[in-house]
């Protein structure tokens, strides 16, 4: 079922979709569904030309959605990898005290080394699980070594996020990266 513009005195006043008449209101969920249809199907979902302002609204929605997805994906990839862990990072920071430097003749901050990122050890790449024989409940359980499921899930989520990043159009990336 396609969308169609209803005009009055050469003004676009609503969108017709089957038995429904949809207003041009961004807060209306049917209007948002119309934008989604334009994003997904383009002109195929419309009877006649898509008005320029409606197309612009669909483009803006798509841009904002891609930007949100890109932000989420980059934040996910920026998290440390469970299989690698993360190193400790320290930084020299002023303590708030100052001492007089006789050579320069000026007061200088007293610095101390502060841990700004704690180290996290990588997870064990494999874990042992106890396997029970479903057919013989009385049998002694055996032990099996499998990839650490936490690492497996982490790697899968990272790969999914990386795919989102790779598929994001450059203008969207530039917009978000310059925020």
């Amino acid at each position, binding site marked *: 079922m396609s969308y169609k513009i209803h005009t*009055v005195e050469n003004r676009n*006043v*609503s969108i017709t979709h089957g038995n429904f*008449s*949809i207003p041009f209101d961004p807060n*209306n969920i*049917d209007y*948002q569904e119309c934008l989604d249809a334009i994003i997904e199907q383009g002109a195929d979902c419309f009877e006649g030309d898509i008005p320029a302002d409606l197309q612009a609204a669909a483009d803006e929605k798509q841009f904002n959605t891609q930007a949100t997805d890109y932000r989420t994906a980059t934040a996910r990839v920026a998290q440390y990898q469970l299989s690698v862990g993360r190193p400790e990072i320290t930084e020299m920071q002023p303590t708030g005290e100052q001492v007089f430097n006789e050579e320069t003749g000026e007061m200088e901050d007293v610095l101390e080394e502060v841990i700004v990122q704690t180290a996290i050890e990588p997870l064990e790449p494999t874990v042992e699980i106890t396997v029970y024989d479903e057919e013989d409940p009385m049998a002694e359980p055996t032990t099996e070594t499998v990839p650490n499921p936490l690492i497996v899930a982490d790697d899968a989520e990272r790969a999914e996020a990386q795919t989102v990043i790779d598929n994001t159009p450059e203008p969207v990336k530039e917009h978000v990266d310059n925020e």
Partner: protein
Amino acid sequence: MTVKITKPQINVREELNDLKKPTGIAGEAMLRADTPQEQFNLIGAGRKNLIINGGMTVAQRGTSFGNTVNQVYTLDRWKVARYAANNYYTTQEAGTGGDPFLNYIKVRRNTGDTSGNALSLTQRIEPINFKAYRGRTVTLSFLYRTGTTFSPQYLRAGILGSTSGGATLGYWAYNAAGVGVNDQQIEPSTTWKQHTISFYLGTNVENLAVAFGVEGPYPWVGTAGSDDSFQIANVQLEAGEIATPFEHRSYGEELALCQRYFYRTAPANTYSWVAWGGYSNTTTNAIVFLQFPKRMRAVPTLGHSGNFQVADGFSVHSCSNPTLADPTQENARIDWTSSGLTIGRVAAVRNANDASAYLEFKAEL
């Protein structure tokens, strides 16, 4: 002059004993409260329920809904969604004598259905109504019962909040990305039981919903029996960590709250008027105007069903395809396609020998 004053004797020990009158924890909390506002909050007084139509009494769309793929609004404000499947039925049911409610909602797989696909009952809450509660704990309370042949191991219920993605939250509630959730698996029960769930409403929550259903690790099992259902009543979401008694609002109040999101004309007979105060601007177009009973949440979508006719003071003409023009949140001009009209004559629209014809206006979340 000497004045002699007599005072009644006071038994100090008895007075002190009176002060030791037994009080419960709640009573002590009331005594400890520093302000009336604190006492007000402790007993959950005043308008407290964020859920609209929690009593399941308002049913402008009807009382029985079935076999719609994906999602459908049912009783007012309540959306039922089944992921990529149909074969489900939703009904408004009447409580029996002794039940602490007039109505409840029943959602079930159709008898004989073999799909395990998720099925949820959801209500999204308008941000303007819950944002004042951000930074506090809110508590969901409800009565539930499962059908005599309820097949899943557990019923699922929860409060869902998200910082974005409002359009998907509540469509299939549990699959919405980036959602903060407190949802719980609940033991089935063929008798009514109350359940409560609390949730810290973060200061950055932009979307909020409550949901009930069958999903994920505990799906529908096997072939549906005659009553593979879950039933929900007296749903309340309120500030605080304690569920207080359900707030019964009058039907009129509840209907008015619902009509901010949805309004359907309710014909009383086969020729009920639906819109008037208009005129014919061409021989094929009649314009009429309609004032909504409440200011709606957004400019609404117009929907229609059935047969209508336009009366122009001299005769009536069949009309169809009502279309919005310049609508607002409060009113709409509706254009009707007809034929044989006379330009400039008045126009009013009514049902055309069709007691079930209606116009509806939707501004749901």
